[in-house]
């Protein structure tokens, strides 16, 4: 057991820290208007966008451990993200690198790294829910084109995306529902493609429904072989590593929550001194620390070259519970003011906690409901029978 970095890793960490010191204004200090643009250019120049991707496609060629160090330092410094094409960097890019043709790589990878535009993900369908592979979106080949008809749902940021990675069913006569699925790269301004934002309970919209009505996609936009779509997707989702950054996100939120409880005085008492609040804050805090260390155990496994399996569900389940609990805690801390939203002078922090307390489903349900995660753990890690 050893939590120290090697001297080479320390050197890299110092490089990152020096960069952050030079390029990130200290906390509380106002960032210049063009800060974000400059930041994006600089991290791109350092090849820290797509840091783990091979150098030949324009990535950083970084090792796993260096990647972790980079993310950790960035999160700790509360720096902006590395790159702006979120889903492109998270899984579209890796899928294209693994399954794409030379042309596809050249056409899409540089734009993903530069953040030229957004990608979205056409996986879920109205009737498929957590059962992704039961998808029905119809796709027929006509000459050099695929013709797509059907509907997707829960497509995150579809309304702001130029491209979509889409799963369709090209073959319905299959033994396993995992067969007959094909992956296409689709332009969002294709004729017959319609995006309808889904208004969430907070009143905003992060997700959309996407309708396909005879949408024609050139065959060269197929990613991988026909029928190989499930495999492409599974590899892509596997790329969604037990994210260090995710834990730091929770940690940051927790620090803010602690600060809120410290600042909030109700009935003459600081909220942080109310026993019922304090103990729950402490419990959440311990679980976040446990998640951080769980992540390091997963990382060790990866560093040893062992594949990561269902154990990441451990942190997913923690996160689902914590996002709900922390929202509830924010509500209980702020009492009568808890439900006031943006635009009221007495809304705590101008209503951001109210937004937060309504925002958990995007995280919790998006990543597979807690019930699904518990099934994964029970069946795959404990070997209990399927229900």
């Amino acid at each position, binding site marked *: 057991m050893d939590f120290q970095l090697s001297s080479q890793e320390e050197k890299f960490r110092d490089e990152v820290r020096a960069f952050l010191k030079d390029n990130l204004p200290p906390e509380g200090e106002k960032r210049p208007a063009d800060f974000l643009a400059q930041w994006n250019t600089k991290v791109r120049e350092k090849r820290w966008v797509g840091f783990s991707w091979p150098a030949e496609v324009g990535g950083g060629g970084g090792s796993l451990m260096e990647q972790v160090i980079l993310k950790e330092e960035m999160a700790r410094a509360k720096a902006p993200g590395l790159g702006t094409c979120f889903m492109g960097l998270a899984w579209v890019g890796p899928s294209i690198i693994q399954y794409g043709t030379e042309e596809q790589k050249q056409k899409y990878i540089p734009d993903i790294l530069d953040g030229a535009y957004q990608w979205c993900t056409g996986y879920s369908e109205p009737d498929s829910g957590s059962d992704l592979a039961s998808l029905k979106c119809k796709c027929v080949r006509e000459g050099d084109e695929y013709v797509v008809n059907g509907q997707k749902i829960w497509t995150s940021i579809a309304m702001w995306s130029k491209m979509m990675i889409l799963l369709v069913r090209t073959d319905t006569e299959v033994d396993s529902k995992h067969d007959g699925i094909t992956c296409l790269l689709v332009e969002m301004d294709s004729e017959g493609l319609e995006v309808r934002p889904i208004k969430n309970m907070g009143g905003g919209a992060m997700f959309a429904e996407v309708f396909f009505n005879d949408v024609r996609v050139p065959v060269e936009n197929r990613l991988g072989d026909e029928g190989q779509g499930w495999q492409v997707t599974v590899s892509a989702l596997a790329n969604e590593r037990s994210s260090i950054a995710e834990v730091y996100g929770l940690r940051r939120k927790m620090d803010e929550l602690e600060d809120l409880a410290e600042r909030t005085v109700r009935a003459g008492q600081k909220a942080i001194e109310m026993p019922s609040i304090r103990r729950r804050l402490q419990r959440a805090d311990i679980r976040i620390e446990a998640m951080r260390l769980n992540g390091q155990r997963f990382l060790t496994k990866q560093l040893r070259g062992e594949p990561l399996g269902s154990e990441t569900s451990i942190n997913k389940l923690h996160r689902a519970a914590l996002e709900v609990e922390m929202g509830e805690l924010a509500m209980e801390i702020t009492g009568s003011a808890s*439900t006031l939203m943006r635009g009221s002078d007495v809304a705590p922090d101008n209503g951001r906690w109210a937004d937060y307390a309504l925002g958990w489903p995007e995280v919790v349900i998006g990543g597979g409901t807690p019930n699904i995660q518990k099934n994964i753990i029970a069946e795959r890690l404990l070997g209990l029978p399927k229900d």
Partner: protein
Amino acid sequence: MNFGFTEEQELLRAEVRKFLNEKAPLEEVRKQCESEEGFDRGLWKQMAELGFAGLTVPEIHGGAGLDLVTLLVVLEETGRSLFPSPLVSNVIASQAIERFGNEEQQARWLPGFADGTRLGTLALLEEGDDLSPNGVQLQAKKDGEEIILTGRKLFVPDAGNADLFVVAYRMGPGPEEVGLALVEKGSVGVSASDFPAMDLTKRVGSLELTDTRIPSDHLLCEGGPAWSAIESLVELGAALVTAETVGAAEGALAITTSFAKEREQFGSKIGRYQGVKHPLAEIYVDIESYKSLIYYAFWALDEGHEGAALAISRAKAYASETFPLAGINGVQLHGGVGYTWEYDIQLYLKRGKWMRPIYGDADYHYDRIAQLGGL
């Protein structure tokens, strides 16, 4: 020994439910609560005509003169349908006048509550969110028989629509040097408005008073009796909210249960899985339990039974701790659709967040139970 409703009460329930199902199904509730005022004055007028609005107002003042247990039946139904109305605030304001006002004051104000033309509310809390005497800081200056009020009230239910505020003020530094006065919206120096808030079916806002002169015939009580009066109004508020919560919680459970019966996943109705069934069963057990507590509390209130305050605090603490979580569970069991604007379950989740702190959160009521000699 009869822990149930009379036939008349059950008939009233059926009548109210029919009225609300027809006039205010959830798609209609959404429209009403998104309007400027947040409720439908026409519908409120109709409810007044049917006697629902002035149910507890004495007959001599134009009301139905019925007891709180009968009101409970109405509240369960308005809660179930998330009906946006000033009912709860109105009952508290009218009961304040009925209980603490003199005959003149009753004769002057109560008929408006009975016929639905008057909207009242209790303005108690201020910055500091404190339900103890210390929380009342709004300053009163004596000027002969009158007083002059200056200060700001927060978290005032239905502030934007109310035309009569029952305002708690402070006369001096002693803990119970407080008073209760009636403040009319039209008076000089009065300004009230609603805050943007999560549960659109329940408005909440602030009342600002700047050198507002209160004539002596608008004063309800002062000193120790005023503090007791305030406490009893908070109690009443907690009771009314919990009664509405019983209905709302049943509504949320019904929606989620029928979703679970319909929705299929992995080739099976999701309601077949114990991971769905068991949380719903637990929610049911909780609802039935705070229901029993609050039913008993209403009966005890009507009888002037000493156990009323204790039963209210027990019910409100129980409901405040469980109903908000039931809403979250409901949304989770719906999966993705549950948190879209379009589905109704999220409306109940928001109601849960609204009801948790109002008229005392669980912490407040647990402490109150101890004060009242309970555990």
